[in-house]
């Protein structure tokens, strides 16, 4: 019995977590479907004839008709959607109206700078944000708390594009420490990441403060103190463990915020990423690229939320060992 205990207990864990994961996954599928329909409809929602839009202002009638034929715009909508999705699964997102290049290639070449930017921003924002939150909670209503919370609300209120420009002016133009833009070296990611992470850092600082204060009101904190544990252990092990579950969830949900913010930051710092591509495509009315970008961002956002949900399940023993 004692020997059997360990494997049994693991299988229980796995099955419970699996059930939870399956539930989340099934929940995401209809959402992805609706989002794909919406994005597909995008080109039809633009006022005017899609074929004329795609062909450009100076196109002749024959050219427009040719494009209409080529894009299958004469087919019924549901047929078009199926074709669109079919191509999508083959990796074909159509060609750019402006450059004629395959959209999938364009996205691929722009993918990595955005990913690096997002990761760097997230990492520093989570670390500093949670740290400020803990300190503020422990020193509640004293000066470190006030400094932390004023920093946080300022970080939420500052326009990202302005913060970026100020950082460029001070650290690139005046001090010459970092490049003003581009992605030629890792150091060129420093200022953009600072800019992009500021908002999330602030949000996490506020959230983890609230969450820590809540945790520290719980009965088990008193139990920890009654055991004679050092306050450092009580806060760092008992309160923080509980708060982190929520903090991780919120941090993940803020990822979408980063995706949106990357549009601004990439514009300010001239980073050849997905966000910059989106802005340029809108300026040039490159609808196929816009469409693909929206789909990519939304899918990414939904999948990140799914991962966060799963992570929450892994971190929270109540879900990991749900007996029902």
């Amino acid at each position, binding site marked *: *019995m*004692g020997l059997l*205990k360990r494997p049994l*207990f693991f299988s229980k864990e796995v099955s419970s977590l699996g059930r939870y994961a399956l539930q989340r996954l099934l929940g995401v599928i209809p959402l992805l479907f609706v989002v794909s329909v919406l994005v597909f409809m995008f080109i039809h929602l633009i006022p005017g004839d899609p074929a004329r839009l795609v062909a450009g202002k100076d196109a002749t009638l024959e050219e427009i008709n040719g494009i209409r034929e080529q894009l299958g715009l004469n087919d019924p909508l549901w047929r078009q959607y199926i074709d669109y999705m079919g191509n999508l699964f083959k990796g074909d997102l159509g060609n750019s109206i402006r450059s004629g290049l395959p959209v999938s290639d364009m996205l691929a070449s722009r993918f990595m700078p955005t990913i690096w930017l997002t990761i760097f921003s997230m990492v520093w924002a989570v670390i500093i944000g949670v740290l400020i939150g803990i300190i503020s909670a422990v020193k509640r209503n004293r000066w470190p708390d006030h400094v932390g919370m004023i920093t946080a609300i300022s970080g939420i209120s500052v326009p990202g594009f302005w913060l970026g420009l100020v950082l460029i002016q001070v650290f690139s133009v005046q001090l010459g420490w970092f490049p003003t833009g581009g992605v030629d070296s890792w150091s060129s990611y420093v200022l953009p990441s600072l800019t992009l992470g500021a908002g999330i850092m602030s949000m996490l600082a506020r959230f983890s403060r609230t969450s820590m204060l809540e945790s*520290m*009101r*719980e*009965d*088990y*904190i*008193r*139990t*920890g*103190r*009654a*055991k*004679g*544990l*050092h*306050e450092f*252990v009580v806060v760092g*092990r*008992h309160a923080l*463990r*509980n708060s982190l*579950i929520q903090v991780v969830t919120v941090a993940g949900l803020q990822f979408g915020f980063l995706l949106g913010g990357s549009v601004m930051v990439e514009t300010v710092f001239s980073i050849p990423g997905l966000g910059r591509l989106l802005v340029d495509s809108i300026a040039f009315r490159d609808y196929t690229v816009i469409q693909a970008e929206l789909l990519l961002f939304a899918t990414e956002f939904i999948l990140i939320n799914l991962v966060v949900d799963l992570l929450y399940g892994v*971190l*929270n*023993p*109540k879900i990991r*060992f749900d*007996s029902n």
Partner: protein
Amino acid sequence: MEKLLEVEGLKTEFKRDGGNVMAVAGLDFHINSGEVLGLVGESGCGKSVTSLSIMQLLKGTPGRNAGGSVKFKGTDLLRLSDKEMRRVRGKDLAMIFQEPMTSLNPVLRIGKQLEEPIRLHMGYNKAKAREHAIHMLKLVGIPRAEGVMNDYPHQLSGGMRQRVMIAMAMSCHPQLLIADEPTTALDVTIQAQILDLMKRLKEERSMGMLLITHDLGVVAEMCDRVVVMYAGRVVEEAPVKELFENPQHPYTQGLIRSVPKLRQKVRRLESIPGNVPDLSRMPAGCKFAPRCPHVMPQCLTAEPELLAASGDASRKSRCWLTQETELKGGTGA
């Protein structure tokens, strides 16, 4: 008999929006070693605050110590530094709480939580601490103790969790166990089991116990002596037998009357008319006067002292009525 814990003039203040209030207003009592002292009263009378003040666990509450002393084997706990107090807490003085559902950390395994004080106070390494923790779980009657070590709190029932709490409190061989309503949140049958367990462990370990409860049934079963609290004060103190046979204070009398003759274990003390007075609007004289069936004019103006009965130092009461009859008896003789 040696005094294990001696509380003198203990005052605990609570910060409130409209100024501070005294939740515990000058408390005196003691616990002898090997003795179970019951601390009884309605909710809101300051029982739990008293226990937190003794353990100095007021951090995180609006309360703070405002005077008096709590001597544990002669050392005043209130004068210890944080570091010295941490060495006492969980080792010499241990505590179990009312809510077994929330008193354990939901995201840490039972084993981890049990090992914490053992490693801290006994200096055991991980393997030895684990062994000791399993031993403690077996001691409190938990079947499949090894398995429970790997469980999370939500996988256990309330009674099992309270057993874990007891195992945790007892793990470093405390000399005094403070139990704050340890069975209130449990089912009736589980209550009896937990009380039996506590009684047995107390006998085996010959430790002192401060049992805080509103349940006179529990008091009758567990305690050697009883201190009755009302509005942050001791109103009566007596050995348990005498208290039930001949309660002196009208409040104690009311409490005992509210227990039905056929003894049932679950019973809220609700049948004394009126409510515990609000801490910020205390009556001037005796704090129980507004609810007292025997109230006299002097009760409304002056508060009686807690005085020992003549000829019996073990009995004390804070009532003009008993002190007057003492007086009369004295002149008569």
